[in-house]
């Protein structure tokens, strides 16, 4: 992999005026919360009073129901792979939002169903079982609504951390797609039974807009955009190169890749159309700056899927979606940059190391791996370092197997002006936490520590 054209570009912009690109996260979070406030206002204006225990129960159930309906749409929108989210906020952070919103949705759903049914049963002086059967069987759209709720709760339980670990990724992923079915099924009872929507054309229109918007985002960014991308770029495997024990690089050839708009530090979701691999789309970072005709990823064999990549034949067709990820040059706010990589987390940092605009001495890479042999791409990194006047340090386990600690003191020894740096981290969770803590201790503020984790 050569770096010439990027290298030249880099030197020309050696000292650009630096201003970190603002993350849209606060704005998006504010909008989401504003929407929730609007939903509460809908309840508020449509409710004149809350009387008696049954009134409290039904009221709480309605508020929870409205919020559930709202968060369902937000959940779907969060997973629509909208570029503003995936590239602006960062896929990992969006996924954590999604997980948080998911837990919240399932809890609200339980409150909604429980409170409404209890309240109705009290109002009607009937038993909870009788009331439940009555509501489920006789109320319009409630069979659908109930089925949707059951699916949502089931998917929620399946996604709980304890269960998730025991379920194959593919199983989890495809069951997770049922969420769309659940949200669709549950949509109808919201309008036909939702007290706040009856006769309120504005609220109905807003709800249609909310759900239509979410559906539109999914259709556009998860279906149409990938189809367009793959039709345009026609990606195929060019070659597979061994970089280290268990680490391989896959070179992918395609057309008009400049139009892809991929930046160093970003990743795509890759689906190799060969054998069983075709059933899984996996995120891998670009391990070199994208070129107009070629992309490169570097993969460590961690499971069946990543191991199988080593055997990919040249010419295999590739289906890609992306680019995603916010670990890019735009996050940077200082002239000096420290990159901290752990193991195969080197891949996005390798691309950044190659391309981040920097003068000699501004750029430092700290690369930790178990053994010297595990330092994949080490030769390339040294080459880039010498061309760019950057520094690269490796940290491998001692002969006794002890891991090299990343401490604030060690960082200060290597970089006395560490507090003046931006830091980019990528690696396993243990390293990330350790490096994050050490950097904070060494005086780097949290907003200048950029990281992305794939443990979604």
């Amino acid at each position, binding site marked *: 992999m050569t770096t010439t054209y990027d290298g030249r570009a880099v030197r020309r912009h050696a000292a650009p005026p630096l201003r970190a690109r603002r993350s849209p996260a606060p704005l998006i979070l504010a909008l989401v919360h504003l929407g929730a406030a609007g939903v509460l206002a809908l309840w508020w204006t*449509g409710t*004149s*009073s809350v*009387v*008696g225990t*049954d*009134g409290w129960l*039904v*009221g709480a159930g309605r508020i929870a129901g409205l919020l559930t309906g709202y968060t369902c749409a937000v959940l779907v929108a969060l997973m629509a792979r909208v570029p503003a989210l995936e590239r602006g906020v960062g896929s990992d952070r969006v996924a954590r939002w999604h997980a948080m919103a998911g837990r919240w949705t399932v809890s609200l759903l339980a409150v909604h169903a429980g409170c409404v049914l209890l*309240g*109705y049963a009290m*109002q*009607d*002086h*009937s038993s909870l079982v009788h009331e439940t059967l*009555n509501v489920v069987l*006789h*109320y*319009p759209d409630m069979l659908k609504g109930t089925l949707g709720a059951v699916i949502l709760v089931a998917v929620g339980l399946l996604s709980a951390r304890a269960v998730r670990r025991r379920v194959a990724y593919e199983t989890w992923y495809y069951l997770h797609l049922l969420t769309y079915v659940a949200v669709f099924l549950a949509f109808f009872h919201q309008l*036909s*039974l*939702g*007290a*706040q929507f*009856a*006769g*309120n*054309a504005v609220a109905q229109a807003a709800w249609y807009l909310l759900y239509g918007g979410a559906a539109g985002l999914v259709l556009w960014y998860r279906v149409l955009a990938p189809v367009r991308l793959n039709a345009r770029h026609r990606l195929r495997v060019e070659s597979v190169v061994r970089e280290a024990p268990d680490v391989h690089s896959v070179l992918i050839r395609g057309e008009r890749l400049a139009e892809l708009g991929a930046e160093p530090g970003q990743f795509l979701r890759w689906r190799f159309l060969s054998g069983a691999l075709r059933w899984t789309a996996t995120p891998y970072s670009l391990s070199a700056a994208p070129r107009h005709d070629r992309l490169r990823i570097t993969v460590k064999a961690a499971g069946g899927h990543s191991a199988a990549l080593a055997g990919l034949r040249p010419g295999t067709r590739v289906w890609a979606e992306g680019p995603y990820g916010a670990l890019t040059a735009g996050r940077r706010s200082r002239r000096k940059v420290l990159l901290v990589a752990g193991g195969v987390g080197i891949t996005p940092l390798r691309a950044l190391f190659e391309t981040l605009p920097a003068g000699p001495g501004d750029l430092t890479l700290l690369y930790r791996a178990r053994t010297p042999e595990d330092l994949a791409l080490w030769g390339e990194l040294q080459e880039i370092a010498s061309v760019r006047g950057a520094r690269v340090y490796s940290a491998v386990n001692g002969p006794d197997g002890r891991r090299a600690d990343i401490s604030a003191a060690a960082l200060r020894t290597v970089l006395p002006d560490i507090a003046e740096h931006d830091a980019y981290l990528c690696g396993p969770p243990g390293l990330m936490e350790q490096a994050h803590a050490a950097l904070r201790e060494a005086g780097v503020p949290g907003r200048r520590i950029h990281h992305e984790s794939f443990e979604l």
Partner: protein
Amino acid sequence: MGTVFSFDIACDGGPRVRSAIEAAVASLHTADAVFSTYRPDSQLSRLARGEVDLARCDADVAEVLRLCERARERTDGWFSAGYAGGLDPTGLVKGWAVERAARMISEAGARGVCVNGGGDIQLLGEPEPGQPWRVGIAHPLRPGELATVVEGADELAVATSGTAERGCHVLDPRSGRPPVDAAASVTVLARSLADADAWATAAFAMGTRARHWLDAQAGVEGFAVTADGGTWRTTRFDRVSAVRCS
């Protein structure tokens, strides 16, 4: 209208009230003459056939049609004055006429007025100082029994719509057919009987979703006996009804 109107008036027998009662009775006869869909010569029938236009009709016709339109909007189309292609505001006109009659008497100085027009009731004031009116809701499936009792004073209207006695006379304006999941009867409480009558007609046409819909309306409460004999009521209905007979 083929309906008997019953007046229950609490007052000290002033001549103003007496003449107001006469005027109220006359207004009901007039309303019948103007709005009857059974009389081919009523203004409404002629209007429906296109023989007269609205401007030439009584001012009451325009007012009732305006109320119908307002009810249609407020009920999201569930109340409709269009019936099997014709023009039929009967879902509202009886309530409107009864309410008007009751208010005429009340404004003449009666302490309490209860006008019952074939089961649709407008209450004003109170029967005795400090005492509410009490209205029984007939149980549609158990003849002779009351499903519940409602109490109120000052201003309360009670209208009931249902299938009882004459078969289904309310159609779902969206399908033009009787409502699929119709209750046996739906009772609506409001301040104005014109409103209550329209809400009850609309709520009956809605079927089971009426409960939630009524719950969301300000100043309106609902109670229904379902086809299987169960009942439901809106959240605050019990604050109005005093006695549970079910």
